[in-house]
C-alpha cells in the first residue's frame, strides 16, 4: 500500500493571496478572536521571516511590523478550499481523502507509475500546487500515518516501497513525538518523561508505555510505523466504471471537449459490457488547469451502454450548463473523466439469426425494423414464429420481416431515447406517461407517471378503459372529454330542476346557451375512502349554440347532500 500525504501549511493565507501577483511577497497575517483577545492564527512566509508567528497578539505583531496586512480568519472558506483541493487531487487517484484541517491524503497504490514513478508524482503534485499558489509539502510512505508525519515533520519525502520494517522504523525514529497526533496532555507527559523522538518510544518495552500513556499511544505508534493497516476514507467512492483522458495542454474548445467525451463514452462501453451492466447515472468530471473541478451529472431512464446515446445525454446537459452559468474553460481542462456511478444489470438484445449488426442498421431496413413502443399482449406468438421461420428460408426480403418480429420483442428504444433526451433537460418529472387506473372519478382514472419510472403493475381487476370495452364488444362507455382542467372551474348555471342540464351558463365571463346535451352520468365518490364532504357528481356533456362542447357537472344532490349544488366545468371536448 502506498499513501501520499499533502500538507498545506499556509492554506488560510494562500487561499487569500494566491490570486494576487506580488501581494504574496508582502507580510500578511490572519487574526481571530480567541477568548476575547485578537490573536494571529496564520501567517505567510514573508511575515514569518519578520518573526510574526501564529498565537501572537495582533497588537504585538503590529508593534513588531507596522505595515503588516491583516485580515480576519474564515475557517469555513478554508474548509471549502481544502475540499476543492482534495477534489482536484482525484485527478491523480480516485481514492482521495480529506485530511482536515490542512492536508489531503491520497491512496496512490498502483497509480504512481502512470505519472512516471513516485518521485516524479511527488514532484508533479508539488509543482502544480505551487503553480496554483499553494505552499505544499508532500511525502509518500507505506502507511497514511507515516506519510502524514513525514510531510509535516520531516524532510524525508519518500519511504521506498521495498523498505523493510527496520527501514521504516529508522525513518520514523527521527520524528518528534508530536507526529503521533495524540492529545496535548499525553504529549506533555511524554516530554516530561524525556521522550522526545519516536525512536525513544521504539527503544522502550511496550507494556510500561501502554500502562503509562494509554493503549491509544501504542496504537498510534503502530500506525506510524506501519505495523497495523490503517485505511483512509476516500471523499467519494471510486467509481467502478471510469474512463479518462489527460492532455498536456488544456482543452478550451467546446468541440474538442465534446469529441473527447464521445471517445470516453466509447471507452466506457467495453467496461460496462464486461460486467453485463448498463449505466443508470453518469458523471463527467472536468479538471481545470488551475485546480477547479466541474461535474456534470445525468441520469438515464434505463440501463445505457450505447456510446452515441450516452454522449447525446451528456451533450444535452452541457448545453444546459452553458445556458445557465457556462462551462468556464478558463485556461483549459487537462483531465476529462467519465464515470458510471450507478449501474444496473443490462442484458444484450437478441440479434436476429444470420443478420449482422450493420445490416440491421441499413437504411432500407430501418423503417420496417422500427420497434413497437410498448407492445401489448404477447409479443411473440406462435404464428409470428412460424412466419418468421418461413421467411428466413424465403430470402433476402424476408430477413427484414423476421427482423421486425424480433424487434417487436425488444424494449422500445425510440421512446426511451426521447424520454432520456427530454428528461435530461426538462427534468424527469416533466416527461410522463399516462396509465389507465381503476377509478371512477375522472381525475383519478388516469395516472401520469414519470416515463423514466417503471410502469405500474397491471392490476388483476378488469380494465375499465374504452379500448378494453371495445375489445370485449361491450357497449361503449360514456364519452370523455379530450381535455380536463386540473382544477374544475366554477360556473354560474341555470338548470332544469331537479336533475336536468343547465339551460345556459356563464363560464369565464361568457354566456353559453345549451342546445344539446347528454347525461346525466352520475359518479359518486368512493364511499369507503372519501372524506365526508365529497359529494356525488352529475356529469353532462353540453353543446352550446356555437357548437362548443363542455363537460360540466353539478356537485351534490340537491336537497339530499347540500342545499345549493354548484356547477363546474371539468373538461372540454
Amino acid at each position: 500500500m502506498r499513501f501520499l500525504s499533502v500538507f498545506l501549511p499556509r492554506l488560510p493565507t494562500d487561499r487569500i493571496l494566491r490570486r494576487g501577483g506580488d501581494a504574496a511577497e508582502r507580510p500578511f497575517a490572519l487574526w481571530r478572536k480567541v477568548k476575547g483577545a485578537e490573536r494571529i492564527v496564520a501567517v505567510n512566509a514573508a511575515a514569518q521571516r519578520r518573526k510574526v508567528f501564529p498565537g501572537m497578539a495582533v497588537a504585538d505583531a503590529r508593534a513588531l511590523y507596522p505595515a503588516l496586512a491583516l485580515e480576519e480568519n474564515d475557517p469555513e472558506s478554508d474548509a471549502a478550499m481544502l475540499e476543492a483541493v482534495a477534489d482536484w487531487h482525484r485527478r491523480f487517484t480516485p481514492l482521495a481523502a480529506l485530511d482536515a484541517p490542512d492536508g489531503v491524503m491520497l491512496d496512490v497504490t498502483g497509480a504512481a507509475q502512470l505519472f512516471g514513478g513516485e518521485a516524479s508524482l511527488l514532484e508533479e503534485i508539488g509543482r502544480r500546487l505551487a503553480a496554483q499558489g499553494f505552499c505544499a509539502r508532500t511525502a509518500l510512505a507505506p502507511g497514511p500515518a507515516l506519510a502524514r508525519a513525514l510531510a509535516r515533520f520531516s524532510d524525508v519525502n519518500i519511504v521506498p516501497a521495498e523498505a523493510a520494517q527496520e527501514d521504516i522504523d529508522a525513518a520514523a525514529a527521527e520524528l518528534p513525538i508530536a507526529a503521533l497526533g495524540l492529545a496535548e496532555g499525553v504529549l506533555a507527559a511524554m516530554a516530561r518523561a524525556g521522550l522526545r523522538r519516536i525512536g525513544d518510544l521504539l527503544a522502550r518495552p511496550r507494556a510500561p508505555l501502554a500502562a503509562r500513556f494509554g493503549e491509544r499511544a501504542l496504537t498510534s505508534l503502530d500506525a506510524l510505523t506501519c505495523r497495523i493497516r490503517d485505511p483512509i476514507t476516500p471523499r467519494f467512492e471510486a467509481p467502478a466504471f471510469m474512463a479518462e483522458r489527460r492532455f498536456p495542454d488544456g482543452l478550451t474548445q467546446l468541440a474538442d471537449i465534446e469529441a473527447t467525451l464521445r471517445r470516453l463514452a466509447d471507452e466506457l462501453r467495453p467496461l460496462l459490457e464486461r460486467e453485463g451492466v448498463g449505466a443508470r447515472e453518469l458523471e463527467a468530471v472536468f479538471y481545470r488547469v488551475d485546480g477547479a473541478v466541474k461535474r456534470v451529472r445525468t441520469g438515464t431512464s434505463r440501463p445505457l451502454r450505447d456510446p452515441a446515446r450516452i454522449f447525446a445525454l451528456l451533450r444535452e446537459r452541457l448545453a444546459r450548463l452553458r445556458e445557465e452559468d457556462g462551462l468556464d474553460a478558463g485556461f483549459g481542462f487537462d483531465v476529462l473523466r467519465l464515470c458510471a456511478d450507478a449501474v444496473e444489470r443490462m442484458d444484450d438484445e437478441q440479434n436476429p439469426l444470420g443478420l449482422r449488426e450493420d445490416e440491421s442498421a441499413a437504411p432500407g431496413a430501418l423503417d420496417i425494423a422500427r420497434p413497437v413502443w410498448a407492445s401489448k399482449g404477447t409479443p411473440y406468438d406462435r404464428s409470428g414464429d412460424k412466419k418468421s421461420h418461413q421467411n428466413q428460408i424465403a430470402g433476402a426480403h424476408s430477413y427484414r420481416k423476421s427482423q421486425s418480429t424480433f424487434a417487436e420483442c425488444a424494449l422500445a428504444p425510440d421512446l426511451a431515447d426521447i424520454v432520456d433526451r427530454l428528461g435530461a433537460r426538462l427534468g424527469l418529472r416533466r416527461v410522463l406517461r399516462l396509465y389507465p387506473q381503476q377509478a371512477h372519478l375522472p381525475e383519478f382514472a388516469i395516472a401520469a407517471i414519470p416515463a423514466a419510472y417503471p410502469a405500474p403493475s397491471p392490476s388483476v381487476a378488469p380494465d375499465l378503459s374504452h379500448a378494453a370495452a371495445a375489445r370485449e364488444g361491450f357497449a361503449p362507455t360514456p364519452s370523455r372529454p379530450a381535455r380536463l382542467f386540473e382544477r374544475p372551474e366554477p360556473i354560474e348555471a341555470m338548470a332544469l330542476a331537479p336533475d336536468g342540464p343547465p339551460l345556459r351558463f356563464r363560464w369565464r365571463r361568457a354566456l353559453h346557451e345549451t342546445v344539446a346535451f347528454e347525461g346525466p352520468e352520475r359518479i359518486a365518490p368512493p364511499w369507503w375512502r372519501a372524506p365526508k364532504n365529497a359529494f356525488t357528481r352529475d356529469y353532462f356533456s353540453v353543446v352550446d349554440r356555437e357548437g362548443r362542447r363542455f363537460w360540466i357537472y353539478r356537485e351534490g344532490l340537491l336537497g339530499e347532500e347540500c342545499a345549493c349544488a354548484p356547477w363546474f366545468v371539468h373538461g372540454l371536448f
Partner: protein
Amino acid sequence: MTRNSVSERILFLRRRIAALEARGGAAGGGDATGREAGVFPVLAPQDSPELLLQNLSGGGLGEILPAHPRDCGAAAGFACALALRSCAARPHGGVVWISEDMAAREIGLPYGRGLEALGLDLSRLVFVRTRGPSETLWAMEEALKARAAAVVAESWIAPRAYGLSASRRLLLAASRGGGSGLLLLLRPCGEAGRLSSAAQLRFEVAARPPLSLPAPARPGASSLGTPGPLGWRLRVAKARAGLFGAFDPLAWREISFDPEKAVFRHAFPERVPAEAADRPDFAPGRRRG
C-alpha cells in the same frame, strides 16, 4: 418583368430549395426533379382534408390556430385527430404531446380517457410538460428529430417570439425525422392570416355549430337535442405550394371525425338521430313516476 414572371421565378426557387432539402444537401435538378422527388405532389383539386394530411404525414409542420379564444378546445381536439391520422400512417411510431404550463392553465391538460376514446393508444403516448415557450420549441424539435410519428405541442407563445427561424428549425427537424409536427398556437387566436412562419399548413379551427338543431318542442320533454358526432369548422389559412390552388383560404368548411375508423368526413347534413319517444330516459311518464 411582369408580375406573373416574378411569381414563376419564386415558385422555381422554392422548388429548388425543397429539392435540395429533400436530398440532404445534394444538388437538386430544378422543377422536374422536384416533382419527381415527391416534394410537391400535384394534387387533383379535390376538396378533401385527407389530401392535406398526405402532405403532412411524410414529415412536415402544421399550425393550428383557434378562430376565437373560446375555440381552443375545438382546436385541441382537431390537433388530436390530426395526430391520430399521422399515427395511422406510421403504425410503429409514437406520439409526443407537449403541454406548456400556461396552455394547461388556459384549456386544461389532455385527458387520457378522452384521447383513448378518440382512438389513441396510450402506450404510444409520451406526455411532456414544459415551463415556457422556449422549452416547448426545443422539446418539439428534439422529439421531431428523434423520429416520433407525431408531435403535438400546445404553446402560449407570442406571435413575435415564434417567427420564421423558429418555425424553420421545426420544419427541418420534421422533414429529417419524417414525423409530423403540429403546433397549437393558443395566443394568436384568429390571426391566421397575419402570422408568418415556415409551416407548410395552417388551419384555423372553430367549433362546428350543432348539426341537429333542436327539434320542435316535444310535448313534455325538453327542447334540447343530443350532441351529434365530433366535428369542427375549419379553413386552411395557408398551404405551401402545390396545395394552394385546391383550397380556398377563405372558405370555411365543416368536417366531422369518426373515431372508430379515424377518418375525417365532410359534414354534409347527416342522419339525425330519430326522435326517440321510446327512450326511457326521456319518457316523461316514467321519469316522473
